[in-house]
């Protein structure tokens, strides 16, 4: 039995996406920005699963399967880049990573 409507699920997903978006926009720590990105991915998967369930198809669920795989690869590469950056610059604050700006 499902008690909440499709609107509620999509609204919740949009809210989570907005929270992650503001994390990306306002935080200065690269690691927390990265967590905001992951939050946005998870929010989109919630919408996909809800659409899939309410329409009785499996396609949304399979796409979530792929998104999980992509996210795992993305996290591995992104964190490797952050570590390489920290090795050369000794910081992870985006304010101080401005070599391309000047």
């Amino acid at each position: 039995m499902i008690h909440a409507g499709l609107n509620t699920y999509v609204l919740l997903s949009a809210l989570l996406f907005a929270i992650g978006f503001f994390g990306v926009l306002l935080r200065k720590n690269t690691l927390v920005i990265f967590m905001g990105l992951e939050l946005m991915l998870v929010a989109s998967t919630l919408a996909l699963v809800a659409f899939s369930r309410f329409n009785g198809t499996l396609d949304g669920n399979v796409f979530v399967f792929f998104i999980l795989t992509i996210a795992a690869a993305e996290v591995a590469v992104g964190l490797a880049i952050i570590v390489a950056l920290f090795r050369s610059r000794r910081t992870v604050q985006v304010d101080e990573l401005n070599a391309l700006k000047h």
Partner: protein
Amino acid sequence: MGSFLFDFFAIFTVICAVGTVVNKNAVNAAMCFLLCLVGVAGLFVQLDAYLLAFLLLLVYAGAVVALFLFIIMLLDVQGKSAVSFKRLSTVAAVIAAGLLAVGLCSFATRGHLDAPNPNYASGVGAALKPYAYQLFTTYLLPVQIMGFLLLIAMLGVIVLSKKVEPTEAAK
């Protein structure tokens, strides 16, 4: 009972997501992110996607958050945050916040997505067999590409994290 569970998991997820974003300490943010993922997994269970809930906990909570915590401890970043908002980015953030708030409000009040009654639609995400059938028939090419992508990502991580040795010419 089901409605109460939905409300509980939804509120729990949103609170933990806000905690992830506003926490000053990166370790606490990662812990909030972990709890947020548990909440999303609970919502997946209510949508009959048991396999995806399990995979979310396994891949995200088990591997991704653990990786985040490892990196945070490896880098040992102190949570110094001299918050100095630049004018341009503040203006951009305010505009984005306004647009998002208007969009969410209009969707919450007037949005209406037509959907068949889910209690008549079969919970196709509940069993494992349909997944396997779909993945190896309709989505066979994406699965192959995904495997190749994972291989490339692994090679990329190895190259990125290798120590750069000075070359013979530099010596």
